[in-house]
């Protein structure tokens, strides 16, 4: 009987009706998830949120947070999540998952205003990360370690927690613990990056993995294990966002290993048009130091003179421009989004520094978060007037202002750091100049001179390890050679006596 009913025309009709109904329901759910109005009426989810909020004293903050997360309003969800945490303290696993989602989408800044006792009381990896980062920022390292230790290595925030803990031990000089943590961090972050389905998440884990590797290389450098350090740096891919920055660190490693030709080769990479926006006063100093160590005093003096002729006047001009920008509200941030020609009109270095900042992960993440907050405000503006609407708009606007101010400060700090670096290394270059003059005077007093006036490069002066090949780059892609250069200069440090007019050595 049942079979006949199902197989008959009525059964087919019922199946069709169920299919159409479920399709319509699905479509409605999708619309409501986006939190948009469908046709003339409000979306189901918005109504639900408004109803939940209209409960007065019996508002279920956690329910509101869940509903807002379902509707992809993460900033709004954070408001009720915080209220729930303040009211209840401890929370269950489902709420912990919601907190994770909020932090992934908005960053830890949304929980910046939560009191410390709430963060300590509410056990869970997400708030432990928030607390750990806060303590790290305040340089209260033991408290940071204590907060982070509850995050398991294979948790979503595990690699980041390992990176922070490793860095703390590194800064405190506890090398073995730091190396262990960095190693685990590199392994888990690489695994997570390979498993990630979203591009941004993959980039986040890849970045952590690279940082753990770079920090280990830095630790080896600090321990004067320069060869080990350089080998670790070589593991960083050239496509990495960090690669242009580690060129300078690698150059220091080569310099400390007394391979001044490799140092100069690495530093000359910054002259490539591809790395045009990466310019560091410290690279100029290291170039001068390398020439100095090779006793090529005139070359070193040339670098110093160029620095004084180029960097110093431009940095003075930049200082004046920054003073003007400081008077405008979020003036530094606005500069980043100006047209190239406008930036060049503003002053020297602005355009290149802006390009450099725009490529930074921190800046891009914060900017994305700011855009998300602004999008949420825009979405809530289309809601019908209600208490919850104005509450959400007001609070999210405060968060957006905070984020925007933070970004502006970040850009300003980058600009001012550059100016400070120019001045700092100007002083150091002056020291090298004095040293060169002193050496030259010493030679004259001793009636000596250096073996050659000007060194010429030669292949035979290039030091090579088993892992370093001599590329001829014939038929290769031009960008492959970046970071592989080496000069072939012979050391000019041999001193010889000056012959007098009769040809006798004195």
């Amino acid at each position, binding site marked *: 009987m049942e079979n006949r009913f199902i197989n008959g025309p009525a059964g087919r009709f019922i199946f069709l009706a169920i299919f159409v109904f479920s399709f319509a329901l699905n479509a409605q759910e999708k619309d409501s998830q986006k939190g948009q109005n469908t046709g003339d009426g409000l979306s189901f989810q918005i109504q639900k949120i408004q109803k939940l909020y209209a409960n007065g004293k019996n508002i279920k903050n956690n329910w509101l947070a869940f509903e807002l997360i379902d509707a992809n309003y993460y900033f709004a969800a954070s408001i009720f999540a915080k209220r729930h945490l303040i009211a209840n303290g401890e929370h269950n696993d489902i709420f912990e998952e919601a907190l994770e989602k909020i932090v992934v989408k908005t*960053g*830890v*800044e949304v929980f910046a205003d939560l009191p410390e006792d709430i963060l300590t009381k509410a056990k869970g990896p997400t708030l432990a990360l928030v607390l750990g*980062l806060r303590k*790290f*920022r305040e340089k209260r390292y033991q408290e940071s370690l204590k907060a982070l230790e509850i995050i398991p290595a294979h948790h979503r925030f595990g690699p*980041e927690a390992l*990176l*922070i803990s490793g*860095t703390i031990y*590194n*800064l405190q000089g506890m090398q073995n613990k730091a190396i262990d943590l960095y190693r685990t961090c590199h392994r888990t972050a690489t695994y997570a990056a390979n498993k990630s389905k979203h591009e941004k998440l993959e980039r986040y884990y890849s*970045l*952590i993995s690279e*940082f753990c590797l*770079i*920090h280990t290389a*830095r630790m080896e*450098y*600090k321990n004067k294990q320069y060869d080990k350090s350089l080998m670790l740096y070589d593991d960083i891919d050239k496509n990495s966002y960090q690669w242009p920055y580690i060129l300078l*660190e690698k150059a*220091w490693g080569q310099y*400390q290993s007394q391979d001044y030709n490799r140092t100069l080769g690495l530093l000359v990479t910054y002259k490539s048009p591809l790395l045009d926006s990466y310019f560091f006063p410290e690279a100029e*100093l290291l170039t001068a*130091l390398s020439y*100095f160590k090779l006793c090529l005093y005139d070359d070193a003096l040339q670098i110093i003179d160029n620095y004084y002729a180029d960097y110093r006047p431009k940095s003075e001009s930049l200082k004046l421009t920054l003073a003007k920008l400081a008077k405008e509200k979020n003036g530094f941030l606005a500069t980043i989004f100006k047209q190239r020609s406008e930036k060049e009109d503003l002053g020297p270095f602005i355009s290149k520094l802006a390009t450099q900042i725009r490529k*930074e*992960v*921190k800046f891009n*993440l914060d900017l994305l978060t700011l855009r998300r907050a602004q999008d949420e405000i825009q979405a809530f503006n289309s809601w019908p007037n209600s208490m919850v609407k104005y509450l959400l708009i007001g609070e999210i606007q405060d968060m957006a202002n905070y984020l925007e101010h933070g970004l502006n400060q970040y850009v300003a700090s980058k600009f001012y750091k550059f100016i400070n670096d120019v001045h700092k*290394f100007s002083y*150091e270059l002056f*020291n*090298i100049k*004095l*040293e060169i003059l*002193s050496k030259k005077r*010493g030679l004259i*007093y001793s009636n000596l001179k250096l073996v050659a006036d000007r060194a010429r490069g030669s292949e035979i002066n290039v030091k090579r390890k088993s892992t370093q090949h001599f590329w001829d780059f014939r038929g290769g892609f031009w960008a492959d050679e970046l970071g592989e250069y080496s000069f072939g200069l012979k050391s000019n440090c041999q001193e010889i006596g000056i012959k007098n007019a009769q040809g006798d050595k004195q």
Partner: protein
Amino acid sequence: MKTIFYASLILLALSSCFIATVFSDEKAEAKVNYKYKKYERFDLGNLEVQGNVIAPGDLSVKERERRTFNRSLFSRGNFDDESRKDVLDLR
């Protein structure tokens, strides 16, 4: 009565004489001029100093190379600040 009058006249005359003498002495003291020798010659070589000589008689300088002062040029000891910044700039 007359005797007293004459006696007081005599006393007055005597006291005025005394005062005049005192003032005239002060004026005389103020006018004292000290005179110094316009030229005096000291022959240091001829001076004799009594005592025992404890320092060596000849002055000797040890020959050494000219000292060169090396300035401490900039050198990177670590990248700790960069590592800390990496953590803070991750988010």
